[in-house]
């Protein structure tokens, strides 16, 4: 029941709401205490209806307490005079009370629970901050309640954790349960209740910092490092698996005072950590902290210091600097050389690919479209000179089979200046045969030659051949020349088979080709020709020209003709034999 007129308030928690609306007063204090269930009536404090309240019902052993603690309050002057009578009465009462206390005493100020922590998830401690003492000796009591239970308990140990603290030992600690904790400050003039705090031990786990942090420096030749070691905090129980500790290391160079310079490293569950390549000459400060499972990080351990000596890797540094400088210098030189001598270097590194060119053919002329000029440019004096360049290769291999060959070699005059006299047929035949010969290996040639021995001739042949083949540089001089007829015939044969020109034939023994060189002897300069004289082109280096040839040539032509005839008849000409031999080669090969 409530007695509104008197301002003496006796209220049960259920009636509180209607009671709250009844009084309109303004006051600075929003505290209430009401007594119940025992007949004790106590009323204290005043309140304003704007205070939002939270009603708790506590039952402390021996005493029933109804506690109203108010969270925030608003001064309301609106309804101030509604119950002025009671207001005045109350105010007078209060002012008298406070006045009498005003000398230096006042009721206890409201304490405040600051923090609760559990270092190992088995016990926990709560600390509070006292309010004003009011000048009188004040005592503090902590009361707590467990989740879903109405029973109120008092703190089991006020002293273990120091002043203004409450330590809950293992027996009184239950994990995974909500604790509702309040601290009450009381002095002779009154009590003050702190704000209630609800905690679950699993949320307030914060271990002590790791212990015995020490740092040692190891000077390895290649990789100097220093090793940080520590011990786990003393009360965390990892042996039973109840908690798992994780560590974190941080370090900074001591010279700077800046807090930002810490470098942090996660160290997992291990009890040591290595830091590589420290700065020589620096003084490091190292700290370690830990946490249990998903709890809060501990405080940083006290710093451990280490001084790194100065002389590590000086030589390494010097070597590195020198090498870098050298590299840079070389690089710059190379760049300079390249820029200056771009073209020659380019030519050296990437030789220009010879483009296919027809000598005398001017592409510009082509573009201009004057064909006569082009072709006139193409026709060079002395054409066809087949072996213009030394690397010009020819398929022919011509082999002598007479002793006279040597004489001929010595004489070696080509009056036949035009290879073109030689008969095309012969030339073709022999050329073909010789091509076939060259296709065989030189060895084959030798052996086959030996098989078909024709007395001296073949041996000569052989020798000639071998000499030809064995010494690629030997030059056979083939002529379509006037000499003894036989020989001539022979020679003409040979020469018909040979190149048209004064060129000497260099057999290229390795490849089977015969190189034809330009004749080294004195020669008459070749007769200028133009293409109007060409009657036939046999291969890419044989042109058969027509009649406008000197007399000698004519003769030779005739010779050839006769010899050809002999060939065709299959007579006993040695050339024919030779030819046969040749053919045998080809067939036998």
């Amino acid at each position: 029941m409530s007695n509104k007129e008197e301002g003496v308030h006796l209220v049960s928690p259920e009636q509180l709401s209607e009671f709250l609306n009844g009084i309109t007063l303004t006051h600075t204090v929003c505290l209430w205490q009401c007594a119940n269930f025992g007949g004790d009536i106590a009323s204290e404090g005043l309140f304003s209806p704007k205070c939002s309240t939270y009603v708790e019902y506590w039952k402390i052993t021996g005493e029933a307490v109804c506690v109203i603690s108010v969270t925030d309050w608003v001064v309301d002057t609106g309804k101030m005079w509604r119950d002025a009578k009671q207001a005045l009465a109350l105010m007078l009462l209060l002012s008298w009370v406070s006045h009498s206390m005003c000398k230096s005493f006042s009721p206890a100020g409201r304490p405040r629970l600051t923090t609760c922590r559990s270092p190992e998830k088995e016990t926990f401690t709560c600390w509070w901050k006292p309010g004003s003492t009011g000048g009188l000796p004040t005592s503090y009591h902590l009361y707590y309640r467990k989740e879903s239970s109405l029973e109120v308990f008092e703190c089991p140990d006020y002293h273990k954790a120091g002043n203004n603290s409450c330590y809950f030992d293992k027996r009184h600690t239950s994990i995974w349960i909500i604790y509702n904790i309040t601290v009450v400050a009381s002095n002779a003039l009154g009590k003050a209740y702190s704000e209630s705090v609800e905690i679950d031990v699993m949320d307030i786990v914060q271990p002590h910092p790791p212990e015995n942090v020490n740092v040692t420096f190891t000077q390895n030749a290649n990789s100097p490092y220093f090793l940080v070691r520590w011990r786990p905090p003393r009360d965390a129980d990892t042996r039973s698996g109840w908690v798992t500790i994780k560590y974190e290391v941080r370090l900074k160079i001591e010279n700077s005072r800046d807090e930002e310079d810490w470098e942090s490293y996660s160290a997992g569950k291990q009890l040591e950590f290595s830091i590589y390549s420290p700065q020589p000459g620096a003084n490091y400060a190292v700290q370690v902290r830990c946490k249990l499972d998903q709890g809060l990080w501990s405080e940083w351990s006290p710093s451990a210091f280490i001084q790194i000596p100065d002389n590590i890797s000086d030589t390494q540094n010097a070597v590195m600097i020198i090498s870098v400088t050298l590299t840079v210098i070389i690089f710059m030189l190379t760049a300079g050389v390249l820029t200056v001598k771009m073209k020659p270097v380019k030519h050296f590194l990437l030789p220009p690919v010879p483009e296919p060119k027809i000598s005398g053919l001017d592409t510009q002329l082509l573009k201009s479209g004057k064909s006569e000029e082009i072709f006139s440019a193409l026709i060079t004096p002395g054409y066809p000179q087949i072996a213009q360049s030394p690397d010009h290769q020819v398929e022919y291999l011509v082999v002598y089979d007479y002793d006279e060959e040597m004489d001929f070699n010595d004489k070696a005059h080509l009056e036949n200046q035009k290879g073109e006299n030689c008969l095309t047929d012969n030339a073709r035949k022999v050329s073909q045969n010789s091509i076939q010969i060259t296709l065989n290996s030189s060895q084959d040639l030798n052996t086959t030659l030996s098989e078909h021995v024709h007395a001296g001739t073949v041996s000569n042949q052989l020798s000639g051949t071998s000499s030809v083949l064995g010494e690629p540089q030997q030059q056979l001089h083939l002529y379509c020349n006037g000499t003894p007829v036989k020989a001539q015939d022979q020679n003409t044969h040979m020469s018909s088979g040979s190149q048209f020109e004064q060129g000497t034939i260099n057999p290229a023994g390795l490849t089977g080709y015969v190189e034809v060189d330009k004749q080294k002897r004195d020669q008459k300069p070749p007769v200028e020709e133009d293409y109007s004289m060409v009657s036939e082109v046999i291969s890419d280096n044989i042109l058969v020209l027509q009649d406008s040839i000197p007399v000698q040539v004519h003769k030779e032509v005739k010779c050839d003709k006769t010899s050809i005839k002999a060939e065709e008849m299959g007579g006993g000409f040695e050339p024919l034999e030779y030819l046969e031999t040749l053919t045998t080669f080809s067939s036998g090969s």
Partner: protein
Amino acid sequence: MSRSLKQVAVLLVALLCLDPHGRVGSAPICTHGPSGCHVPSLADLFDRVIQHSARMHSLSNDLHSEFEQYFLPSKNHIGKIYRKCHTSNILTPNGKENAQKLAREELTEVILKLLMAWRDPLFQLHQSMAHQQDFNSFSSNKALEMGDMAHELRKGVEKVAEKMRVLGMLGNSVTGLSAAEAMLPISDSGEAMSDYELLYCFRRDSNKVQNYLKILKCRIVPEHDC
């Protein structure tokens, strides 16, 4: 003709490839033999389930703090009246000594009971989070993942129990849980619990499971990390 053949072939391939169940089942290709097959030891199994439970707890932690941050702005602890969790009926040890005093079989059974009790509520939680507009899909995905994890963890713990039974470490009192164990999250007043309450309760229970598993492991296979 060839076209229809092709179509048939494509269809066959598609049928083979598409698994209507969407789950890949894996069957062990080696039995208990040591030949070329790594049969995980009990310690390995324990490590796996403990890691799994740690992940599950951290996920529930994240979800709970997200919820708290966005939907309950007042940090005022006073006024938060928690209803009882639906798993409050399961007797769980509330501290280290109590957990250590409990026999292995009972501890294992407690773990399994807890995990079983959360099977349906987590599903409900995911459903309700997915339907509400307030949550972004990220949160409701986390809830789904959490439900899957609880399911997997339960399977894992059952495997561990099986292995322990095979090795003779467990008596036969650990029975398979019947469907009756699966509880509905109904509080005292008969109303369904809110999402926030569910999250709070699951956060607490996942922490319990993690701790119990670690205690069990260091009791049974204390070689490493203990």
